[in-house]
């Protein structure tokens, strides 16, 4: 069914008989999922992500080796029946390590996204809804954080404290909620003028309920899109830090620190598979998140929501 047909269907007035209306009852959610599944790239991205996520979750069963078990005889061994994707400079199985690394990389990505989005949504909602000096103060804080050279701040914080996964997540969260906050604020600025907000206020609903129960669900579309794209961004950020040796410390594998370990001319020349596969995983994962994000953006287009 093409977009036009769908819009018409959603627009057409409810027919007189009750049974008919019920059978073709379409909630906003249904319309959105339908629209999302029309986008082939987004669906492809979603499938790849599901495969990657389940492979990470099922790592203990899918792995052929202990990811940290070293075997000196297998150092930089090429892909073979035993080491499917080869072995690294300490003789560890790259395939098994990639699976376990996926757990860590995805966990950092998701958790950082959750913390950044939560902070951003709360601060953006409050700033946008109340306006005035509250807005001014909160948005100046946002400006300060944005204008800070965050990569240096990140490196400083991480090198002062022990680089644990939780540390990374907190720092990512604290440094990158600003985009979400701005996004949510701008949505609130337009939605709070809408009549249903005034109507909710005249019905005596508490302010907290109006902000988070009534305006936020209307503004959530762009937030979901931004959050999806942010996961990819955090995976890259984690890899960057690990690559610089500031990320999650060995022997715990992440895609980033596997890349970092393979930084060696001899390895590049003799064992291409060592840097190639972790890099490929980062590439595919982030690309898939971006496809899904774009698909969500189209599906959540407010022009569709309004129908």
């Amino acid at each position, binding site marked *: 069914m093409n977009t036009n047909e769908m819009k018409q269907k959603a627009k057409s007035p409810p027919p007189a008989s009750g049974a008919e209306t019920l059978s073709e009852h379409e909630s906003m959610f249904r319309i959105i999922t339908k629209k999302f599944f029309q986008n082939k790239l987004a669906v492809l991205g979603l499938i790849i992500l599901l495969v990657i996520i389940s492979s990470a979750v099922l790592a203990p069963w899918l792995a052929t080796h202990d990811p940290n078990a070293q075997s000196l005889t297998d150092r930089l061994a090429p892909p073979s029946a035993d080491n499917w994707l080869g072995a690294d400079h300490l003789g560890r199985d790259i395939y098994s390590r990639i699976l376990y690394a996926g757990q860590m990389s995805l966990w950092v990505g998701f958790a950082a996204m959750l913390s950044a989005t939560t902070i951003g949504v709360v601060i953006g909602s409050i700033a946008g809804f109340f*306006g005035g000096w509250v807005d001014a103060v909160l948005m100046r804080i946002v400006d300060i954080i944005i204008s800070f050279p965050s990569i240096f701040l990140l490196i400083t914080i991480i090198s002062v404290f022990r680089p644990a996964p939780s540390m990374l997540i907190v720092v990512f969260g604290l440094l990158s909620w600003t985009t979400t906050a701005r996004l949510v604020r701008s949505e609130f600025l337009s939605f709070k003028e809408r009549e*249903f907000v005034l109507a909710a206020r*005249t*019905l*005596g609903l508490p302010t907290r309920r109006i902000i988070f129960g*009534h305006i936020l*669900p209307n503004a959530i579309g762009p937030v979901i899109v931004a959050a999806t794209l942010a996961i990819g961004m955090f995976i890259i950020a984690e890899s960057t830090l690990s690559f610089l040796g500031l990320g999650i410390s060995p022997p715990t594998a992440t895609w980033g620190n596997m890349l970092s370990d393979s930084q060696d001319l001899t390895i590049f020349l003799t064992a291409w598979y060592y840097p190639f596969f972790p890099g490929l995983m980062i590439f595919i994962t982030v690309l898939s998140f971006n496809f899904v994000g774009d698909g969500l953006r189209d599906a959540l287009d407010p022009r569709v929501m*309004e129908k």
Partner: protein
Amino acid sequence: MNGETVIDIRHLKTSFFSKKTELPVVDDVSFSVHKGETLAIVGESGSGKSMTALSIMRLVPTPNGEIVDGEIYFNDRDLLKQKEKEMFKVRGNEISMIFQEPMTSLNPVYTIGDQIREQLTYHQDITRREAHQIGIEMLQTVGFSRAKEIMGEYPHRLSGGMRQRVMIAMALSNNPQLLIADEPTTALDVTVQAQILELMQKLSKEYDSAIILITHDLGVVAELAERVVVMYGGQVVEEAPIDELFDDPLHPYSEGLLNSIPKIEGTQDRLDSIPGTVPTPDNLPVGCNFVTRCPYAMELCQQEEPRLMDKDSSRKVRCFLHEEGIATDGQQHRSS
């Protein structure tokens, strides 16, 4: 009409502040509404009707707007002295409001049922299931035959008239003593307008609620209201029982409003209109607010501001033409 007073507004003044200037949008407005009565507030856009309503609800847009002065007695309590927390119990429960734009007054992401239940469970100590039942009954009351199905519908599936009926159902579901309807029929088709008006009239009788009907449509006023308050430039210029206003408008502005209604009898080439527009609050003339558009303006009108005077027991007017000792030269002000 002689029932007990539900709301009594005295010398209400609401202003907007920009930089350092104060712009009064509601200026010295006084009127009261009795139990079971429908009072209409009429006036052009920008005359302060809606701001008066929002002032009663204490929902004047912040941070620029502010209620500066006056008292609003609701059941002998001054609403302007209540804490904000108390107001949450008044809104939607004792006073509720319906709006001009039914298309946007419902939250697009929730079903009708969600929205009706939410405010019921918030104001009354009932379970979700009971609220659902009351919701269905309310929807039936406002004329939905498929009330059960409507509870599960999203607002985008309903027409404007249906949404306005949902709004009325929500507004009345907590059995408020006062219903403020801010141009409830302006955005609707003419055929639907009549339905909504009849419904409001029927329900106000049934629930014994007082209604403040804000409109610029004198046809609607004639249909529904018992008493009329005419507003101009943020002030009440005339208050009268509906028949008396239509038969014998005292204020030149009321007269102008009535003359601009198309008449059915006789032929009319052009509709009468009041020349000019309502002055903006930052541009009010010295003296009477209406002086720039008034056909009977006298010198005095440009110097002093008239007060709202009792003409007789039921009528009030703010005009020098009707003040004792000023318009005594036998001036016949009414055009024939």
